[in-house]
């Protein structure tokens, strides 16, 4: 077994080029758990590439003209939960705040979360709602995949051997956005169901992405269209009568299962409830949400 700690992206890519089967280690919150539990056998011929010392991966940059924000794969959930990032993408900050504990948030990276692609990954519904694009790099160059094409199944992605996730780019929307997740405990808990709702005011679209309720993150497109069509955009409100239908459409978009954490029936119910509550926060009865996203000021 060997461990390599590259000091630059170029060095990391070189190693991965030589050993495309190498295990990539970011924060360790997934890979180290597997190692410690013996669920991943690490033979003597394995190479681990530890990315914690690659500075290029730990930066995020704002592109005002394109209204996007490019988040380096090494950016931690602690970084995402803190200002100034939190003010730019509040839903991702909210999701980050629900991830594990302070110790976990200091180590866990967005790149690692995307690479693992568990349907319960807390940041993933936000990425899906914000049209995230995953940037993949290898020795030959860089390519981009929309998140919906990147995540192909439960913990299965379109990443090729030798490719490194180098960044995730999300849209900066002008409008309310928020994340909510249901768990049995009040902290440090895997989502039984999660949802992100994001509003694009100028574009008059509503995005609703659901986590833990299907093999992949789901965009509830029928619910989204319904909400966009029925919202009173100028008043910033949504009729109460339509709320029930919105929740029903959202739940219909999910295909949850029974497992040791919960039941399909309860998860359906959660999607219905969370979707309606998020929409109510975005389009409150009196019009105009209390806390617009900072992106509105750009």
């Amino acid at each position: 077994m060997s461990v390599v700690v590259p000091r630059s992206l170029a060095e990391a890519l070189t190693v991965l080029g030589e050993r495309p089967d190498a295990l990539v280690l970011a924060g360790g919150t997934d890979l180290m758990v597997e190692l410690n539990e013996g669920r991943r056998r690490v033979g003597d011929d394995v190479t681990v590439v530890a990315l914690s010392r690659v500075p290029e991966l730990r930066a995020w940059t704002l592109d005002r003209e394109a209204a996007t924000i490019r988040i380096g794969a090494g950016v931690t959930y602690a970084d995402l939960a803190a200002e100034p990032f939190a003010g730019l993408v509040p839903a991702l900050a909210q999701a980050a705040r629900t991830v594990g504990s302070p110790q976990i948030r200091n180590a866990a990276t967005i790149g690692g979360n995307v690479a693992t692609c568990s349907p319960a990954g807390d940041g993933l519904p936000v990425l899906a709602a914000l049209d995230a694009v995953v940037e993949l790099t290898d020795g030959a160059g860089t390519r981009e995949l929309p998140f919906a094409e990147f995540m192909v199944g439960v913990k299965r992605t379109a990443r090729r051997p030798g490719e490194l996730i180098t960044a995730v780019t999300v849209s900066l929307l002008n409008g309310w956005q928020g994340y909510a997740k249901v768990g049995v405990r009040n902290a440090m808990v895997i989502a039984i169901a999660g949802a992100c709702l994001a509003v694009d005011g100028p574009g008059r679209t509503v995005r609703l992405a659901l986590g833990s309720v299907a093999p992949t993150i789901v965009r509830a497109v029928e619910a989204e269209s319904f909400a966009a069509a029925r919202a009173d955009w100028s008043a910033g409100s949504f009729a109460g009568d339509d709320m029930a239908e919105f929740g029903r459409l959202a739940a219909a978009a999910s295909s949850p299962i029974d497992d040791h954490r919960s039941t399909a029936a309860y998860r359906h119910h959660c999607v219905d409830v969370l979707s309606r509550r998020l929409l109510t926060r975005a389009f409150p009865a009196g019009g105009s949400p209390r806390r617009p996203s900072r992106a509105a000021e750009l």
Partner: protein
Amino acid sequence: MTLVDIGRRAQGGRIGDSPTRPDGRAKVDGTFRFASDLPMDGAAWGATLRSPHPYARLVAINIAPALAIPGVHVVLTAADVPGRPTYGLITADQPVFADGFVRFVGEAIAAVAADHPETCRRALAAIDVTYEILDPLIDAEAAIAGDTPPIHPDGNVLRAQHIRYGDPTATGAVVVEGTYQIGMQDQAFLGLEAALAVPDADGAGVELHVATQWLHEDRKQVSACLGLEEARVRLVLGGVGGAFGAREDISLQVHTCLLALALGRPVRMHYSRAESFLGHVHRHPASIWMRHHATPDGAIVKIEARFVLDGGAYASTSSAVLLNAITHTQGPYRCPNAVVEGYVARTNHLPCGAMRGFGVVQACFAHESQMDRLAAACGVDPLAIRVRNAIATGDPMITGQILESVAPVVRCIREAEALALPPPADPDEPLARPGGAGLTADPQHVYRGVGWGVSMKNLMYSEGFDDYSTARCRLVAVDGGARVTLKFATSEVGQGFVTIAAQIARTILGVDDVELDRIDTGIGSAGSTSASRQTWMSGGAVDAACRAVREDVVNAVGGRLGIDPLRLVVDGADLVDSMGDYREPVAVALGDITFDRTVEYHHRPTEELDEDGQGNCHTAFAFAAHRAVVDVDTELGLVKVVQVATAQDVGRALNPLSVIGQIEGGIAQGLGLAVMEEIVQIDGKIRNASFTDYLLPTTVDMPPVVAALVEEPDPQAPLGAKGVGEPPCISVTPAIAAAIRDALRQADGNSTRADRITRVPVRPSDITAT
């Protein structure tokens, strides 16, 4: 926050003070040695191979591929057990290594010793086991019905015990019944199982350093399995990281010793968390039907009940847990007539045994749920009905035993009731709402409920078991002062016995300098650290040993000075003639004599039950009342416990700060059982053997506790002090469930969903009824 007056003195400290614990400094700076922190030169690592199947015939075990791995020294199986092949606390029905059959997921099949834990893991993976998979028995009712083939030579019913008291035909004008479910809780101590076994040079003895609850009982079972005399098996208490019942049974003790003796080298063994879930016993899941008959104004006339506990694959302490459960059917209330059927079944589920509360947790959830139903049916306030029926000293229980303990039930209720309710939720603090950081609820989704629970809990062991304790006290003058050295085998598992032992000695002998000797089998048994018994029993032993020394001192000094020893008393740090002028420091009075006494302390004898469940089977009782305030998002079914208030009958608080620690910690465990802790087994296999999915309360889940200590010293207790470890975790669970029901009634305007809350832990889908 608490209304308790924490004693003034921080250092030294006598009975009633709250001195800091003697091992506190080492625990905060990381130098305290737990059983997992005991390196030894030349030690090998041990690990255990466990069954992945709940029920299977063991056809063949091929250990050769494991032995072929470099660094693997030895692989042991059932054939390598030199002594008795089985062990057990009550019945020795559990094999050291599976032989012929495996009966639960996690049953030990083999053990290996190697140079590195990773090598051990590879060795375990290389052992080739052939199983013939059998259909597991996972239905406790089916096991009791008697029409399933036995999964063990001793049969599928671990115990059946009934109680018939008074007039079985009596009825009441008001009748309420319900069936209540309690899920399997895990003790989840943080200090994982760990041991170091050091073989004697001649290979005919071994020293075992281990985290355990009862050194002598471990020694008895270990020596029998090793085929060695008890004197050749010496146990030393390694630092214990919590117990809560999971360390009463043998886990890794025999395996570690066998490996060390086979290897001729020390062996360390540590369990992982996943393995720990498999490697110790759990709280019995239970299904309890109860029917209460009462007069129209709520006086209990009769209780009928049927208890079915799932004991899992091996007997452990199941028969005692069942006894506790059924004898606490009536709770802290008078009950003139009772008909109770009790069963604990053997199944292919994880073995169950002791966990803090020991059967009374299950009974209490049922009887407190019933008391609320009774209150509603009679149109009586839930507290009023409890006060109306409260048991008092001198009343009989449904075993026919007269309650002799001090029993301040009404006072506990009233004092808990008097504790201030919490302020309303802050609408601008989303993290304080149910769902926490998940941000699921807005203020309008949340309803606040209040609920009550009251409990009675037996102290010490029962049914004729003489669980005595032993302590040694040595007093000697040293460097111009005096020093007491105490020795006992009492397992310190975090509860703070090491603190109060010194407080007792200082109070009796007037000497501040108290040293504690190593805790090991070099002295007689202290009994188990369980059953809320150590303050009474080991405190009683220390008290008795110190008093014996004091008597020797006054006899010696009186004889020397010509003063009647009966006039000599300890006053502070001095020895004084209560009727004369003599006064000098104890340290001076000692001269150069060493005073040294070892005393056994026994509680009064108890009896077994007859076939009608009648007999004086328990030793003593303690009481507690809990009030829970919860906020519930009734649409999503998420719960935030806002406050728990309690008044607990402690007899006398020897160390008030330690008592508060037990109360807050016990409430946390009861809260866990109420809303989040459950081992999930599907088709006989555990699905959540990790802290990811076996959820313990975090700082965000645990509310502030307000506590009142009810101190009415019990004349039967050697120091007036009752045990305090278990009462805090028992009635808090039904109090939280009742509070959830209260919130649902407010949200719905009716009791339909509330009445369906009949199980703990309460899951979100139980609340939402989706």
